[in-house]
């Protein structure tokens, strides 16, 4: 068994708490992540689930080193990147890609789709044969070639998210962080994007951290799940295990709170427990 792509030990992240910032001097630090241990195996999709405030997005940002951990260790591909300075991180960046939650705000409105996809390629020294690479990326995410010359506002939500995926995957990264990438989409589009990501992850052997608040989506896509709450890991296990036999009450509550598209008169009754 190969060593995991990510190995995280005792990860802590503290951020300035702007709500408690005094007039002068720094804001006091608030601990967002309170010591996390986990591995992300190579070539698998790991779901990170939690409600707002659970720290799941902070965790994602710490993995791709947009945030510097305050304690603990983050080993990526055998290399300790916990406190790596930005200059040394730069060559690693092409392997640490990110797909954002809001495709609208992460795409520059004044640039064509082609140039949006091409930008990270050029930056990482893959500027040769640019046109072909862009064409390949578009094709990979199922967008027609005619989209190369279009702008952000000419695209639908699902198409924008495809562009986001194309941009991240054009570099054939080792790791992709997908942060709530389907939460703003309609169900029909959501299904398409998930199917696409599922297919690409399998084809390209990607290691993906898939952050979501939606357990249904996680179950479909991920092999492993990490459940987070208030900056700590509640439960982490293989997806089927977690859904069939949730160990923690919190996980069970989360599952019970999901309104399934089926008639269930008991669901809304105050005292009722969800049927086993």
């Amino acid at each position, binding site marked *: 068994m190969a060593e995991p792509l990510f190995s995280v030990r005792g990860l802590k992240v503290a951020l300035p708490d702007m*709500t408690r910032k*005094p*007039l*002068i001097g720094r804001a006091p630090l608030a601990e967002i992540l309170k010591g996390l241990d986990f591995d992300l195996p190579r070539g698998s999709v790991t779901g990170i689930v939690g409600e707002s405030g659970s720290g799941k997005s902070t965790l994602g940002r710490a993995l791709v080193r947009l945030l510097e951990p305050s304690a603990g260790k983050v080993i990526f591909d055998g290399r300790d990147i916990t406190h790596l300075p930005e200059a040394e991180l730069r060559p690693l960046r092409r392997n640490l890609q990110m797909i954002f939650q809001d495709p609208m705000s992460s795409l520059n409105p004044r640039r064509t789709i082609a140039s949006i996809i091409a930008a990270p390629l050029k930056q990482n020294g893959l500027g040769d044969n640019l046109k072909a690479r862009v064409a390949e990326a578009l094709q990979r995410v199922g967008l027609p070639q005619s989209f190369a010359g279009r702008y952000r506002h000419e695209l639908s939500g699902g198409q924008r998210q495809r562009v986001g995926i194309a941009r991240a995957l054009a570099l054939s990264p080792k790791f992709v962080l997908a942060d709530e990438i389907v939460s703003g989409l309609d169900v029909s589009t959501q299904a398409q994007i998930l199917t696409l990501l599922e297919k690409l992850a399998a084809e390209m052997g990607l290691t993906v951290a898939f952050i979501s608040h939606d357990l249904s989506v996680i179950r479909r896509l991920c092999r492993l799940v990490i459940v987070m709450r208030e900056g700590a890991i509640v439960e982490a296990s293989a997806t089927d295990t977690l859904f069939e036999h949730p160990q923690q009450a919190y996980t069970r509550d989360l599952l019970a709170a999901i309104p399934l598209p089926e008639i269930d008169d008991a669901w809304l009754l105050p005292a009722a427990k969800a049927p086993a």
Partner: protein
Amino acid sequence: MLLQRFLIRLLTMAITLFGVAVVVFVVIRVAPGDPIAMMLPPGATDADVARLRALYGLDKTIVQQFFIWLAGVVRGDFGTSISLRQDVLGLVFNRLPATLELAIVALLMALAIGGTTAILGARERGTAVEAGIDIASGAALSIPDFLWGLVLILLFGVLVPIFDISGRVSPQLDLPFATQFYLFESIVRLRFDLTRDLLAHMLMPAIALALPLAAIISQLLKQSLKEVLDLDYVVLARVKGFSETQVILREALKNAALPTLTLVGVQFTFLIGGTVIVERLFSYEGLGNMAIDAVINRDLPLIQGIVLVFALLFVLINLAVDMMYALLNPRLRHG
């Protein structure tokens, strides 16, 4: 915590004022124009020049002069005006109330005019009324205050002479006032005959000062109002059954006023700056009018005193704006 904030604020104010004092002190001494050359009569000799220089302490280096002056200021002595031959602090505080009254009346008018048109424009958004308000405020904004002054003088001073063109009060009147705040004191003393005379003098300069600011307030507030009027809580208020005017006044105005407020603070300092020229135009006996004479005569101590008072005023206005901001924004108040 609050005390700490207050002290820090006080310290920054003091530093700002000191900086202003240094800059003004140096600039007016380096700038062309020498107060002694200004008062040299025909026939004066170089010896006379030297004698007068020594008399006014201008024979020392700028640094020496500054510290002599500063030592005086610390004791509350801002020196003696060269041209008016009186204590600078007394002169300045004697004139300041007139300018403050004018500026405050102008500010109130600007708020009233700007606020009303903003609310009307926001309520009638997309109609000819809004377009009319936009054109009017465009005109008000592109014409500077002193030109408004001239227009007003022509309109209400000459063609339809309903206001007084110059001065602050009719010289014929006997004033019972104990302070220089004539307008406020006339109201407190219930001497509304005097209030009317004071207003008849003050309205034209006040309008001239107020119009450009009113236009800015109108445009900015209208814009913020229109933005706020699309927000969920405003929609909710409409659903509750409130009329558009009620919605604007109760729900939108306070939140829309926040961005306007900061700007009004900044603009108010401009307005006070504008009093200099407008007071001159209307021969209004305020600080600005005196400032122009002081500059013409190169009356160094007086210029310093006036500028420092203006600077103090600006600093205080900023403080007031910050406080108002906190008062209107509960997030900051409890933050």
